[in-house]
């Protein structure tokens, strides 16, 4: 009786999308001949409407990942356009919406379903098929000054090594791995409605990454720039972002911590190792 209840709970968790809850016994063997429904739009020149096209593909003839399937479909229909580069989940180019959830095509296995629906990432202007206009996403990222800033009057930037303790470096784990694929930001309904002024989970993750870096000295200015109604506080802890992240990061946690830093409930701790300790070049 107990195992039956556990199975139900596990299946409930799986179908509700909670990560890390895979059904152990339900290994349904699906016929490898699948149907891929792909969003197609031939570009503004053709004046055609976006539509869904069906492609029948035997997934045993291509690799395991959705990107392999897309490449195979492109062999069948060369007019299909999609972004891809590294095929290992590090460049962030191939973000798509697969079966209703955002993911990176190159590191997501083809799901064991008969029909597989592929859309471009939600609420973005479509250039062609699965290629979307990412300009404002990257503009938002640039606006948070994603680089190290030190208040260095002696103009010796780059001449000295900046020391950082192991504990301070560990704070950056879970922050530096972000590949700016936009899966999280485009899964956030708040970013859908307020995308021009709300920065979105990806950018806020990086904003927190630079605020919390012990070597950065511009914390006050960074937090002041984020202190308005829209940049950070359009986040209503919906948490679609962390469910969507293909790298397993949790933007919503860092946004919550960032909100506490902005509203001065928390303060950034001093670096545990003097940053210019080895500045003279000696050990």
């Amino acid at each position, binding site marked *: 009786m107990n195992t039956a209840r556990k199975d139900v709970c596990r299946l409930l968790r799986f179908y509700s*999308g*909670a990560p890390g809850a895979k059904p152990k016994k339900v290994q349904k063997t699906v016929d490898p001949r699948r149907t891929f429904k792909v969003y197609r739009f031939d570009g503004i020149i053709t004046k055609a409407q976006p539509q869904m096209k069906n492609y029948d593909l035997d997934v045993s003839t291509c690799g395991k990942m959705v990107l392999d399937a897309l490449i195979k479909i492109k062999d069948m229909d060369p007019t299909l356009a999609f972004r891809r580069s590294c095929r290992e989940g590090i460049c962030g180019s191939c973000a798509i919406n697969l079966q209703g959830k955002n993911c990176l095509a190159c590191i997501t296995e083809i799901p064991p379903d008969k029909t597989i629906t592929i859309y471009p990432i939600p609420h973005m*202007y*479509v250039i062609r098929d699965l290629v979307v206009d990412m300009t404002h996403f990257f*503009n938002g990222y640039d606006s948070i000054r994603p680089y190290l800033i030190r208040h260095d009057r002696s103009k010796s930037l780059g001449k000295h090594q900046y020391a950082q303790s192991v504990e301070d470096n560990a704070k950056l784990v879970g922050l530096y791995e972000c590949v700016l694929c936009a899966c999280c930001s485009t899964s956030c309904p708040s970013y859908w409605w307020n995308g021009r002024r709300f920065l979105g989970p990806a950018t806020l993750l990086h904003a927190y990454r630079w605020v919390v870096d012990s070597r950065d000295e511009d914390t006050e200015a960074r937090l002041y720039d984020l202190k308005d109604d829209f940049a950070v506080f359009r986040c209503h802890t919906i948490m679609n972002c*962390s*469910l969507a992240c293909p790298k397993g990061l949790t933007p919503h946690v860092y946004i919550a911590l960032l909100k506490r830093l902005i509203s001065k409930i928390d303060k950034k701790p001093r670096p545990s190792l003097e940053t210019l300790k080895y500045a003279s070049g000696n050990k």
Partner: protein
Amino acid sequence: MAFYCCARLSNKSVMGTLTKFNTVIRTAQYAQSAAVPKITFKQYEEPKVEPYDDKNARLQRPMSPHLTIYKPQLTSLLSVTHRAAGMLLSGYITALGVGALVLPHDVAHYVTMIEGLNLSPATIFLAKAMLAAPFGYHFANGMRHLYWDTAKGLTIKEVYSTGYAMLAGAVAITIFLAAL
């Protein structure tokens, strides 16, 4: 040579006035322009960056589908229900306020009116439960939101487990309020 040097040292307009020495001057001018290229400055114009929305509106690009295709997940469902419950509660308060201003009779009159309908206790319980549901849900989820504002309970596992616990709590509060 001296004449040539004068041509280099003086500016061109002075040269232009010496029309008597046409051919010589012209060759001297040519020599000057060959030696010293004329530098002109254009006013700096910032590159015009077209705003994102304007550019896409001009190009009439379609928007990729969002609400219609995105998978409903517990996180987004609970969040949107929280907002809907909040709007319903605002509606209740507005109705109460406006009703107090506008309606001719007091609350007791309307309660007697509803009692006069002689509905079964089950119907009355259901009606009260439906009215109390937004409050129960919004209250329980509100507690969860305040817990998140302390930056605690934010792992996905905890979000899901507190979500289910919250739903149970919401049902409990609703039943309690409906039974009053």
